[in-house]
């Protein structure tokens, strides 16, 4: 695999601290969600991205506030990295009226329009063409906004993916296709679904830039995303960014899905030694940041998470009178 090299050298200590904070926050939030699912307090299906945190953090660090992101079923990390409110997400997962979708979405349908998160939905690959449309919209309006589609390797098995790459390349649209290749589509490994491990080659085939990066190296992800965003903004068109990573937990819920195949235990051990957070901590220690100050970040995040869980528990359920609201939008100004 010809991966783009680490961008650590060009990252400042402050940037690295901010990456570490972002990744640790996603991990701790998801570990907490995993506990809440295991205890049955949370019942909506939750798909955890533990082990993959460097990708949303690295990509979103390269974006402006008004750039848009579009996600799927495994999108807690995308939502948090782009600036979505933690309380609103936690309450959404609890199905509460204070949730980001007022309890209509749960974990799989997150939204925060003010932060450019227009929606994450679990139909595999469904938001890829929507991101293309957001990019087309930006181009027609002359805003230079960039749209990012986050999706897993399973989504590259869908027709949506190939049609969207072609359309975006054809019209040179400012869009980033970020494939979080965690090597599994639910229980099926990549090699059970494709003859070749060559997702990134779809880019060349459709005439757009394609880059593979170590998706567990946040500096490499950031650097590649920055370059792709720059190209998109100056009108040079879309990029497919394949980020190689591994999902530590199962397809859905907190368990590790060790039963899916003989290789899973070995792979998991290997990838856990390649932990994006541990790598970032190691990098920070070479820059003279003490492990105490790193640990104090985690302690603060834990407090924030417990506050979010309390907020969600104490929030009201949606009222039954809301059941049929918003099936249609109220007519807006024309």
């Amino acid at each position, binding site marked *: 695999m010809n991966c783009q090299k680490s961008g650590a050298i060009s990252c400042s200590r402050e940037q690295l601290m901010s990456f570490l904070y972002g990744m640790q926050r996603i991990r701790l939030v998801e570990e907490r969600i995993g506990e809440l699912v295991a205890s049955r307090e949370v019942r909506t299906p939750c798909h955890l991205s533990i082990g993959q945190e460097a990708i949303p953090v690295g990509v979103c660090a390269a974006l402006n506030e008004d750039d*848009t992101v*579009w996600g799927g079923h495994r999108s807690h990390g995308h939502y948090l990295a782009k600036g979505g409110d933690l309380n609103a997400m936690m309450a959404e997962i609890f199905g509460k009226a204070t949730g980001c*979708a*007022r309890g*209509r*979405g749960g974990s799989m*349908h997150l*939204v925060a*329009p003010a932060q450019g998160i*227009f*929606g994450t*939905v679990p*139909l595999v690959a*469904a*938001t*890829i*063409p*929507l*991101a*293309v*449309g*957001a*990019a*087309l*919209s*930006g181009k*027609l*309006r002359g805003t230079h*906004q960039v*749209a990012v589609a986050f999706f897993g390797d399973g989504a590259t098995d869908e*027709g*949506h993916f190939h*049609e*969207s790459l*072609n*359309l975006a390349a*054809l*019209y040179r649209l400012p869009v980033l296709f970020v494939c979080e290749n965690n090597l599994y589509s639910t229980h099926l490994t990549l090699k059970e679904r494709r003859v070749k491990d060559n997702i990134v080659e779809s880019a060349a085939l459709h005439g757009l830039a394609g880059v593979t990066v170590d998706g567990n190296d946040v500096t490499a992800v950031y650097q590649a995303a920055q370059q792709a965003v720059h190209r998109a903004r100056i009108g040079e068109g879309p990029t497919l960014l394949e980020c190689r990573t591994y999902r530590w937990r199962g397809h859905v819920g907190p368990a590790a899905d060790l039963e899916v195949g003989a290789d899973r235990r070995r792979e998991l051990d290997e990838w856990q030694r390649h932990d994006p957070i541990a790598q970032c901590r190691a990098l920070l220690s070479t820059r003279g940041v003490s492990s105490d100050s790193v640990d104090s970040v985690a302690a603060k995040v834990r407090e924030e998470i417990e506050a979010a869980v309390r907020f969600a528990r104490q929030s009201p359920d949606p009222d039954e009178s809301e059941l049929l*609201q*918003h*099936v*249609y*939008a*109220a*007519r*807006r100004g*024309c």
Partner: protein
Amino acid sequence: MRILTYAQAIREAHAQLLAEDPRVFLIGQGVRNPWYAGTSLQDLDKEFGRDRVIDSPVSENATTGAAIGAAITGMRPILFHPRMDFMLLAADPIMNQAANWSYLFAGQVAVPVVIRAVINRGGEQGAQHSQAVQALFAHVPGLKVVMPATAYDAKGLLIAAVRDGNPVLYIDDRWLYELEEDVPEGLYEVPIGSAAIRRSGRDVTVVATSYMAAEAVKAVATLAQRGIDVELIDLRSIKPWDRNLVYSSVGKTGRLVVADAAWMSGGVAAEIAASVAGEIFHALKAPIARVCLPDAPAPTSAVLEQAYYVGAEDIVASVEKVLL
């Protein structure tokens, strides 16, 4: 006012919407090509440029998804599917995405997209160039579905659809393209959800959609000569549909024939019949009749086609049946 054909009225609505609102753009397969669109989009690319009139690859998923993404982020796209059959490849973006997002995100996201689907049947084109699957989309909460049957409505409903702020399926039928009538020159709207009484009558209510509304005009003239006084309602909107107008008409006549040139089972006519039977059963003096296509794919042979499609004569026969 001046006389326009149905196709010219569609074109004029597009041109005026593109001129009026910079958020409006057109995307779809064949938007530059009369083979796909008749005269209904003629030369719009020359007038408004190819940035806003985008003739796309045959990628129903990507173009429909892109139109939806553009709508969510502030545009007012009109998507063109030259054959409804092909649009089924975009069932996910239409039924799972466009239809859901307002509800799913509690009104924080709107999807103001118009999805235009053309029914292009007959001419020995067979099963996959002929389908009229409006019922499939009318079934889905979050979508609106309109089917203009006249030039006036073709223009006014397109304008209302673009301004509506919701995903609206605009379904036109090529068998109507040459119909002519007076069409106002300016922008005007035909309200979505309102049906039109084409003829008042006392004996039987005929509710018809799209092409069958045009056929019903002929049927009603024949029946009038036989002394049968039909009230003809052109439904215009399939979803929402004008329950009040239909109920008040059937309340007066006590008899109902529903004509929809699509399959009978699970169709628009079934929905109307069930609603009337459920809500105003006491008003009915006779069983409700439906004039629909047989539950079979469209055949190719001209002889079989002739047997397959319904028209004015079938409406006449059904009206006479409910009067027996």
